C-alpha cells in the first residue's frame, strides 16, 4: 500500500512575522523554517500505518529547493522516498493551484496510492483548502481535522473534530485524510535515520514534467496588500488585594468594556 504524505516548509510558530508591504510578502531573513506542525502528525501516522500494514511511505512537497530540508527530515523520520515538485512561483495563497499540481502528480506517478495524508492546514497560509480540493479533483472521499484513524483492508474509520464533538467517518480507500493535533505524538529522527536520509536522492520534478503549460497555473487570487495587524494598545494593569482586584475586573468588564 502506497501512502503519500504532502508536506510544506513554513516559518517556526515561535517566529515574529514581519511584513514587506511593497512586495506583499513576509520578510524571510532571520526566520527559522520548519516542517509544518500538522504535516508532522500526518507523517507520523503514515509511518505507523506502514509499520502495521506494510507498504511504502512517500513524502511530497510543492515548493522551492529550500523545501529539500523538510523532505530530508521526513526521510530521517522513516519515509521510504521523497519527491520535490518544484514550483516556480512564491506563495500564491491559492489552494486550488497547489491542489491541481498535487492531483496531477498523484494521477501521473502514484495512481495506485491508497492514502493521501496532509496536515489540516499549513501553518502560515492557514487556508485549509488543499486536502478537500485534491479529494474533489481525484474524486475520492475525505476526512479533515482527523484525531484518530483506523485503516482496515480497503476501508478506514476516521474521527474528525468538529465544534464540541467528533464525527465518526467511514471511508473507502483511496481517501484523503488531513491530520489534527492529537492524532499521534510524532517521533524524533534518529541519528541512524538522519545518516540514511543524507544518502537518499530526492528527485525533483517540474510542473512542466506534469504537463502544465506556462499559463495553466495562473493563480485565481490577486493579492492587493499584506499588512501587519493593528497593534493592540496595552491597557491598565493593577495590583493589590485579590478581593479588590477581582472587583475591579468585574467593574471594568461591566461598566467600561460593557461585555458582561
Amino acid at each position, binding site marked *: 500500500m502506497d501512502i503519500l504524505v504532502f508536506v510544506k516548509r513554513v516559518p517556526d510558530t515561535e*517566529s515574529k512575522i514581519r511584513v514587506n508591504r511593497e512586495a506583499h510578502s513576509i520578510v524571510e531573513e532571520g526566520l527559522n523554517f520548519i516542517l509544518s506542525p500538522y504535516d508532522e502528525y500526518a507523517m507520523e501516522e503514515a509511518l505507523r500505518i506502514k509499520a502495521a500494514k506494510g507498504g511504502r511511505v512517500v513524502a511530497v512537497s510543492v515548493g522551492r529547493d529550500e523545501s529539500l530540508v523538510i523532505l530530508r527530515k521526513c526521510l530521517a523520520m522513516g519515509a521510504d522516498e521523497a519527491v520535490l515538485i518544484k514550483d516556480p512561483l512564491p506563495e500564491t495563497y491559492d489552494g486550488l493551484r497547489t491542489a491541481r499540481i498535487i492531483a496531477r502528480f498523484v494521477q501521473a506517478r502514484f495512481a495506485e496510492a491508497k492514502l493521501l495524508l496532509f496536515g489540516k492546514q499549513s501553518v502560515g497560509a492557514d487556508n485549509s483548502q488543499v486536502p*478537500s480540493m485534491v479529494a474533489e479533483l481525484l474524486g475520492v472521499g475525505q476526512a479533515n481535522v482527523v484525531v484518530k484513524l483506523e485503516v482496515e483492508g480497503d476501508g478506514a474509520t476516521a474521527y474528525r473534530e468538529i*465544534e464540541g464533538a467528533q*464525527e465518526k*467517518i467511514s471511508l473507502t480507500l483511496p481517501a484523503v485524510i488531513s491530520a489534527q493535533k492529537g492524532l499521534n505524538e510524532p517521533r524524533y529522527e534518529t541519528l541512524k535515520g538522519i545518516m540514511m536520509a543524507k544518502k537518499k536522492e530526492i528527485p525533483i520534478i517540474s510542473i512542466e514534467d506534469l504537463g502544465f503549460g506556462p499559463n495553466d497555473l495562473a493563480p485565481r487570487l490577486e493579492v492587493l496588500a499584506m*499588512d501587519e495587524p493593528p497593534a493592540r494598545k496595552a491597557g491598565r494593569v493593577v495590583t493589590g488585594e485579590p478581593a479588590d482586584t477581582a472587583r475591579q475586573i468585574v467593574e*471594568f*468588564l461591566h461598566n467600561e468594556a460593557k461585555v458582561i
Partner: protein
Amino acid sequence: MILTYIEIRENKIKKASLEALSEAGRIAAELKTGSAAVLLGTGLEGFAPELHSCGAAKVYLLEGARLDRYSTQDYAAALAGLVKKLGPTAVFFSATAMGKDLAPRLAARLGVGLASDCTRVAARDGRLEFTRPIFAGKALLTFRLTSSPQVVSLRPNVFPLSSGTAAGEIIKESFEIPDSASRAEVTEILKESGAEIDVSEADVVISGGRGMKGPENFDLLREVAALMPRSAVGASRSAVDSGWIGHQHQVGQTGKTISPNLYMAFGISGAIQHLAGMSSSKVIVAVNKDPDAPIFKVADFGVVGDLFQVIPPLKEELKKLRSA
C-alpha cells in the same frame, strides 16, 4: 445574487451561518443584487422565516435522501448543481468545521478560487475584496478572486447579525448526485462529555496556561465560565502539551484562532504563537503573577497577582452581578 450556505446542527441554525448570511445581505445591497440562503436535507421549511428575517429573500431547500446526512461529496455535488442553475455572484459559507470541509470541495468542483476564513469583505467598483488573517493573525492578506463565482468562507464571531422582518419565498430544488466508488460517510456524532460550546464560537473564553499548575485546577476556570453565557474554556499550548486539557481547547497558532467578545487569560505568559491566536478578541483580561509577562502588552485590563487568590472573589463578584 449572493447565495449563503446554512448549516443546521442539533436542529438549530448555526449562529455563524446567520452571521455569514447577515454579511451576505450587506454586501448584496452594495452590489445591488439579492441575498438567498440554501439548506440541504428534508423537512427544513420551518427554518425559512428566520432566514428571511436575516435578509434572505429566497430560501432554497435542496432535498434528497442522500442529503439527510452530511457527506462532503454529496453536499458539494448538490450545491454545485444549484450554483450552475442560479449563477450567483458569490457563495458564502461560515468557516465552521463544516464550512472549512465543504467550501473547498465546492470551489474545486466549480474550478474556482476560495477566499477562506475572511474577517472582512468589501465591495469596491462592483468587485469583492477580502481580508483574512494569515500566520494565525500575525499578518493580514487583502486580495481579490479572479474566478467566478466567488466562493468565500467567513470567520465565525466576527460579523454582526442583522435583523429585519422581511418575508420571502421558499423554493425547493433537487439535483441528481452522482454515485462515487470512493465514499466517505459520517456514521456517528460523538459528543464530548459535558461539552460546552467550542472556543471558536464562544462569546467568552476563559483560558488557562502553565500557571494553572495542574489539570484539576481547570475546574476553577470551568466554574468562572459557568457564570457567563455562551462561554468556553481555553488553554495555552503548554497546558495542552502537559496533558491538562484536550487540544480542542488550545488557543494559538497550532490551536484555534479566535475572536470572542471577552478573552480572560489566567496564568498565561503570552508566547508569540498564543498571542497570534487571541489578539483579535474584542476585550482581553489577564491575570498573571509576573508583571513582565507579554500578555499584559495586549490586555485591556491586567491584574498582577496570584490567580488562585483572584478567582474565588472574582466568582463572587460575577454572581453578585448576575443576581443584580
